[in-house]
């Protein structure tokens, strides 16, 4: 996720494999051949040269089963993959069953590191399970693919061609005379037909085509049309199984209390006093704290509450949001500055500018608050471990469980369930490590660990707090000539790495591209540009939060552009347009946005309109927010217009849903979101003090998708970055006051 999107357009040699499935039938999937197998980083984990992604299986009974070793967290990944496969396989979407394969320890090592990062990029899976699960592997041609978009289609197309070939052979007719349709191969000339199920075994003996023919997008019948999501029916009846719903025979329950002090640790606890409480089975130390195991979750929670625990502060007892902010300001002026990008001669340009403008922005730490609190169920028997959880990274879950139980990673089997939200949180080793530690303490019995919401809020991997400074130079005519941007923040790559990865993979943040993503690659014409950062080291855990660096850089850059528009007395739309002459894709989004929003139509007094435009993960999103301020100083966000260019679309209905979702997530943060520290502890603990937007506060949202034949971009994250600046730019429009700090709940709009 920290990787630059362009780097993710993977150009890898990929190997199509197909053959006889376990239990009969045809299996087709993709193996990736990494460019540099055995490089230091990956080699350290014994990762072999190939890895396999999702695969499709056709049983002799004609069932078409798609295995997606990847978590569904509401982003529609199951459906999107199924659509890509169904398109080329020539079956209906309703003919495909999707299943979560278990990730066996034997193969889990093969999920390479990149798999753990791009959690919102559903089209990348790596794993080598299939290759090993196939008793017979016919190898197709090695070829170059760009990523899952093509890979999935190739899997579908290859399977279809193998099935057609099998039919052609059995009828002794030419391949081209046969056609595949809705799970049947027909020979129109003679009126014969055979179902995929009938052909599966014979097709498994055929070598996968070296270069399967893909449909041109103009012939898509499914991809690009709104399709109902496969996972939705189970989610309206309460039947969908989330990690927290896992039930095993004889299962125990565990509750945990972790050290609330940043960088602190557990000193002691009085187990004796609670061992006699109803249902209590064990009290055991875990990474970061102590857990109580009981016969029900309620008993475990109650005993935990009664447990006297002593923590020490690790020397950070004085840490507070105030002290952190002071450190940041100091670092802004005198920290170790790393230049990330330099174009032209910004210094000279600033000096010779007719006018300069400077602004400082500051954003707080943010929590994820996934709707489903962190949880994991585990059982340990000798050197074998099994875990059940909803996770964005089976690799991390596996590593955590292995460490927690003290076994090798190949001894862990991971069962992946639905996730009640992920947003970047569910890819840490913490929860599976604790669950395995507890399961080790009650060896032989399954135990379900559930974090309270308080633990979830206080032990998150937070979106970093950021301080940003901008300077701009303008010439006599008001044209923008120079732009400098310095960011002060912690590195999420470092934070995530320290918590989750072997030390040799953890850098110092200097090359963490996520810190400046969305700040150093602006679409605007900026002849003299400098983007710098100062990497902070603090005892606050930071991690990947929906849209990562874009979440703050989108706010900063789109606010500052708005400031410059105002400074040069230009309309914010016209101003941006002037800077986008070299960026036709962005310009198109902006123009559609202005038109759909009725940008030229004046608003009544007390109302305001603001816009923002931001590219992330290969997609360009523009948003306009319309707000009202009541005479009592109450803010209401009335309407959001959202235009997205995410290239070719798979399921447009999911794109609309993801834009809404990203907007709500960003709005919650802009309005209410802040994690603060006092005396070394996180102040907030649950929804009453870490609020989320509710239905009554919802704006109307209109989403427009720009038709495009470009390569598909992401949709889970790009909806989030523009909403905060669109909102504060609207407030500026209404009040003339620039907002450089969030959340807005701390502001008194009456005194603006």
């Amino acid at each position, binding site marked *: 996720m920290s990787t630059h999107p362009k780097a993710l357009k993977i150009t890898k040699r990929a190997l199509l494999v197909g053959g006889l499935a376990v239990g009969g039938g045809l299996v087709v999937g993709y193996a990736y051949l990494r460019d540099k197998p055995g490089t230091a980083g990956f080699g350290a984990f014994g990762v072999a040269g190939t890895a396999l992604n999702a695969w499709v299986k056709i049983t002799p009974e004609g069932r078409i089963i798609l295995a997606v070793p990847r978590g569904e967290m509401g982003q529609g990944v199951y459906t999107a993959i199924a659509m890509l496969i169904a398109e080329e396989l020539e079956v209906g979407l309703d003919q495909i069953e999707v299943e979560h394969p278990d990730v066996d320890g034997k193969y889990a090592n093969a999920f390479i590191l990149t798999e753990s990062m791009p959690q919102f990029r559903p089209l990348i899976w790596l794993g080598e399970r299939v290759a090993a699960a196939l008793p017979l592997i016919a190898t197709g041609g090695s070829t170059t693919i760009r990523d899952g978009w093509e890979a999935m289609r190739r899997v579908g197309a290859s399977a279809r061609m193998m099935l057609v070939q099998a039919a052609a052979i059995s009828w002794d007719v030419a391949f081209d005379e046969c056609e595949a349709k809705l799970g049947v191969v027909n020979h129109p000339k003679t009126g014969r037909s055979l179902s995929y199920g009938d052909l599966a075994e014979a097709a498994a003996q055929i070598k996968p085509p070296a270069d399967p023919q893909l449909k041109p997008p103009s012939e898509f019948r499914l991809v690009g049309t709104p399709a109902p999501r496969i996972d939705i029916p189970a989610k309206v009846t*309460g039947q969908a199984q989330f990690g*927290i719903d896992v039930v095993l025979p004889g299962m125990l329950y565990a509750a945990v209390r972790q050290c609330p002090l940043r960088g602190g640790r557990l000193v002691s606890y009085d187990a004796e006093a609670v061992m006699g409480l109803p249902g209590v089975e064990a009290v055991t130390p875990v990474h970061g704290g102590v857990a109580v195991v009981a016969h029900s979750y309620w*008993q475990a929670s109650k005993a935990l509450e009664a447990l006297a625990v002593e923590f020490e502060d690790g020397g950070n007892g004085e840490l507070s949001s105030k002290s952190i902010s002071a450190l940041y300001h100091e670092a802004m002026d005198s920290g170790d500055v790393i230049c990330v990008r330099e174009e032209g001669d910004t210094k000279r340009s600033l000096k010779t500018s007719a006018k300069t403008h400077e602004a400082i922005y500051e954003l707080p730490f943010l929590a994820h608050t996934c709707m489903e609190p962190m949880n994991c169920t585990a059982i340990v028997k000798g050197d074998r471990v099994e875990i059940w959880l909803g996770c964005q990274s089976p690799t991390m879950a596996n590593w955590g469980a292995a460490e927690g139980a003290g076994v090798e990673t190949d001894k862990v089997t991971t069962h992946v369930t639905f996730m009640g939200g992920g947003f970047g949180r569910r890819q840490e080793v913490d929860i599976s490590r604790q669950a395995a530690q507890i399961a080790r303490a009650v060896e032989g019995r399954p135990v379900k660990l559930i974090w309270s*919401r308080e633990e979830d809020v206080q032990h998150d991997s937070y979106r970093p707090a950021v301080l940003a400074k901008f300077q701009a130079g303008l010439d006599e005519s008001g044209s923008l000539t120079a732009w400098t941007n310095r960011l002060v923040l912690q590195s999420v790559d470092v934070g995530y790495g320290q918590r989750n990865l072997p030390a040799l993979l953890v850098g110092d943040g200097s090359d963490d591209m996520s810190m400046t993503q969305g700040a150093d690659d602006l679409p605007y014409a900026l002849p003299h540009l400098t983007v710098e950062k100062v990497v902070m080291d603090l005892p606050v855990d930071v991690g990947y939060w929906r849209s990562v660096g874009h979440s703050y850089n989108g706010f900063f850059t789109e606010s500052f552009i708005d400031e410059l528009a105002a400074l040069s007395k230009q309309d914010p739309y016209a101003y941006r347009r002037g800077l986008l002459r070299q960026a036709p894709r962005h310009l198109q989004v902006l123009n559609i946005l202005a038109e759909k929003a009725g940008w030229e139509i004046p608003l009544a007094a007390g109302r305001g309109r603001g816009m923002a435009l931001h590219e992330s993960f290969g997609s360009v999103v523009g948003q306009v927010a319309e707000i009202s301020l009541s005479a009592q100083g109450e803010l209401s966000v009335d309407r959001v217009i959202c235009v997205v260019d995410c290239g070719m679309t798979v399921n447009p*209905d999911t794109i609309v849903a993801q834009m809404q979702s990203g907007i709500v997530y960003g709005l919650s943060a802009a309005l209410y979101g802040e994690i603060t520290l006092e005396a070394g502890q996180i102040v907030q603990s649950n929804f009453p003090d870490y609020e989320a937007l509710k239905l009554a506060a919802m704006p109307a949202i209109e989403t427009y998708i720009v038709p495009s034949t470009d390569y598909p971009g992401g949709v889970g994250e790009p909806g989030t970055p523009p909403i905060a600046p669109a909102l504060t730019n609207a407030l500026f429009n209404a009040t003339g006051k620039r907002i450089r700090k969030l959340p807005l709940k701390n502001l008194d709009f009456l005194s603006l």
Partner: protein
Amino acid sequence: MVYTLKVNGDTKTLNIDGDTPLLWVLRDHLGLTGTKFGCGVAACGACTVHVDGIATRSCVLPIEAVAGSEIRTIEDLAQGDTLHKVQQAWIDNQVPQCGYCQSGMIMAVVALLEETPQPTDEDIDNAITNICRCGTYNRIRKAIHQVAEA
């Protein structure tokens, strides 16, 4: 203590600590995991069930306070293969994303519509105060209106 309640039409007798919240009784003792845990402090609505027909947050409701009551959970909405009209509207409008909040949402909405079959937007705003971190609110509103207009 032994408590008796009626859950989804069946009488259940449990020997359990009286302060155990209904949420955990349903989930851990009766195996009805459709009702979710989100906050434990009556702030999110993920645990919403019907207690004698009223939408109630079960995470802070001790079993001793509901002994003898009739409880209805998400598992009881569909009759066989026929979904409740609210569930159907949820599918028609493709409401759920991660889905975790939706049991509580649907139970809150069913109770609202039983009381107010034709709710205004304001009625909906006041009645549906559950949290959805995936931000499915606008589709929820649309689905409610669809049911009301049917």
